[in-house]
């Protein structure tokens, strides 16, 4: 049973769609910032903040803001999970 689960888990990890990984790499500013600073992801100090893109989290809110300001829209979408594990782009 455990062996089957491990095999299944391994297979699911191996078959993770490349584009899902792309989404992770594209949409994970902390990871990118860490790399940009020569650190590994997750090695940011507590409270350390860097300039990032400020995202509206809903289409309704973003569209209303675009109508209000007349600014163009930069739109991205991704699922915040990988094979149902949350907390990751």
């Amino acid at each position, binding site marked *: 049973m455990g062996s089957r689960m491990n095999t299944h888990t391994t297979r699911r990890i191996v078959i993770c769609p490349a584009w899902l990984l792309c989404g992770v790499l594209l*949409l994970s500013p902390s990871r990118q910032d860490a790399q940009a600073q020569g650190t590994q992801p997750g090695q940011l100090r507590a409270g350390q903040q860097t300039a990032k893109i400020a*995202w509206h989290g809903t289409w309704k*809110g973003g569209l209303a803001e675009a109508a209000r300001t007349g600014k163009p829209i*930069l739109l991205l979408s*991704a699922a*915040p999970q990988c094979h149902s594990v949350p907390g990751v782009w």
Partner: protein
Amino acid sequence: MDRSFLSDKDVIAASRKFVCVRLATYENAEENQVLKRMFAPGGVLQNTVFAILAPNGRTHLVRSGRSPVWAFGGNRGPGIHTQPVSAIKNMAQTMQAIARKYPGKAPAAQESVPLPYLSDVRLALNVAAADRQPLVAVYSPDSDQRRRMEQTLSPIVWSGQFIGTAQYVAAQNKTEFKSIKGYTNQTGFVIIQPGTFGLTGKVIGVIPADTPAAQLQSQLASALARHTPSRLSYNQHRQAGVQAGARWQSKTPVTDGAGGRPGRRGRRRPR
């Protein structure tokens, strides 16, 4: 050296002239339909969507696709995080050109800029965990009080010190905090450390709702500084999540997969 698009300083600088919208795919049926109008080969919504649009939200200004690569060139697949400088600069320059074409309107006096809210606390916890950022919940059961809180908070959120450093959500019911440890039903700005997998959280600060702007800014900075981002790498995170049984159930079916057949959760090898 990181060469990906969205962490490039020129792209970030250009983004300040845009309304930036990042949606969580498969979490809202209406937004799914919007995304399908943007990019959906075979009519099937993909996991990731990228577009640059006119202010009307309909006119595409660059080629839409799954990522900026589709519009600006560069590497697809595993090398996508090491994009050629030329592609990144292409994106930044194109965005600047678009911003010149759509310079925006002068804001009305005393107009408060809306907060960049996520749709609900559940999703906001997940997104904050994924971004490794703290979450700020603007909580009050009283909509008038919540609006006053938003007006006080807005100039701070969009200021150079704070922009893009946290996630935000509005809350009007204490039950929305049921997965958050340390919450004591206090109305105000609730600063939350998301759990590693964004399924839980803990309160790292509460600022009273009627706090004046100057004090709110300093107290918010102090509270945000108590946030400790996850130290797990991407692979460690995924493996730890599997071992911990951390699972996310999307609100709508995940349709990304081989052959574009709805309901499948990913590409599978022939057995």
